[in-house]
């Protein structure tokens, strides 16, 4: 759950410009459909995840299912760590 919190904080501070949206962000919110993660945002998020959680994310893993919500990102990372 700590990972979940860290990811949420990163998204709130680095990817969301609007403070009211940032304050109300839930782990189940769709980050893609709401535009919180856009084409530049995904690049920043990847750099953050790879550095912070010491994982290597392959290009073919960059599909919506893995990044749709904070929960999905968390589960994706958990799976990666299990593999590694």
């Amino acid at each position, binding site marked *: 759950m700590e990972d979940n919190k860290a990811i949420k904080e990163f998204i709130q501070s680095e990817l969301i410009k609007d403070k009211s949206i940032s304050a109300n962000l839930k782990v189940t919110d769709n980050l893609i459909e709401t535009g919180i993660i856009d084409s530049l945002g995904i690049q920043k998020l990847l750099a953050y995840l790879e550095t912070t959680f010491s994982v290597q994310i392959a*290009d073919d893993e960059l599909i919506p*299912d893995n990044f749709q919500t904070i929960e999905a990102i968390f589960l994706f990372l958990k799976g990666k760590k299990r593999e590694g």
Partner: protein
Amino acid sequence: MDFSLTDDQINFKKMAIEFARRELNNDVKEREKNSEFNMDGWKRCAGFGVQGLSMPEKYGGLGLDILTCILTMEGLGYACRDSGLLFAVNSHIWTCESPILKFGTDEQKEKYLPALINGALVGGHAMTEPDYGSDAYGIKCKAEKKGNKYILNGTKMFITNAPIADILLIFAVTGDKKGFAGISVFIVEKNFHGFSVGKPLDMMGLKTCPIGEVILEDCEVPEKNKLGKEGAGSAIFNSEMEWERSCLFATHLGAMEKELEECVSYAKVRHQFGKPIGKYQSISNKIAEMRVRIELSRLILYKAAWMKAQGKRAPIESAISKLFISESYVENSLEALQIHGAYGYSTELDFERHLRDSIAGKIYSGTSEIQKNIIASFLGL
């Protein structure tokens, strides 16, 4: 980082220079004037191994490391006076072959890579649309699944190689509400029902590279021609762009080296007011600045390539590299033209062509402004 070059790498660059001088420059002025693509040169490039430099031997490539590929491109950029041909070849490699190698199924690789590498097929990719350039993920071209096919509808614009391409990687929307994550890629062959291309567009530079419009009208694409998973379009596009921004611009580095050499030689022999113009600081300082830009271009290019070779992501480095090299090529071309005065402005020499060709580099593969946005975004802005 270790940028020391092996003898093999140095030799490869030399061989590329000799090859380009010997086989790619015939009738280049005439082709430039007629906006004519050099298909014979394309095949000669394939014979030399250019289209397969970085591709595995299994598919007929040379399987070379990234630094050797870059040095080869530098050599070609230095000696080949047909920038349009080099641009066509690079687009083919980085936006068609590489993504098929990286994201394709075994069947797709076996079907397309050998013929792309041996020069029998010409490839490219189609992302840009009439209303969507820098806002790449806003594209409207749609792909709807029907049975075991996708039906593609839309128009693509300014597509490199389109008029001569046998296959294009077409980016299309498969998920309406998903923005950048709703884009998928399809390998579309020129004979697929509903696929057509417009006439080559008349551009300011890169005259010998065919660039055109692509029209998809109920274009039927078998499901097996989907490249990567549904929604993988942005990952494929980012991967392509990082490679292209890291490698294509090596040809610009080579071209800048050539311009510099010619400026130095000219500044030594051209006399005005009783002495060589190179003895005037107004000229020698320009040449020194050209050299500085080349040196810095080389360092950032090699750094980005080194990171890619390590399997690392290099979004900032490839953006800096693309931005700096493309801007430097324009500045160096302007200076080279100015140093040569009216001779430089004349179409007899290559400086005005370099200038026209160089400006394209500030636009394609993400404009200079977009590269700055990427860099700023990573700074939290």
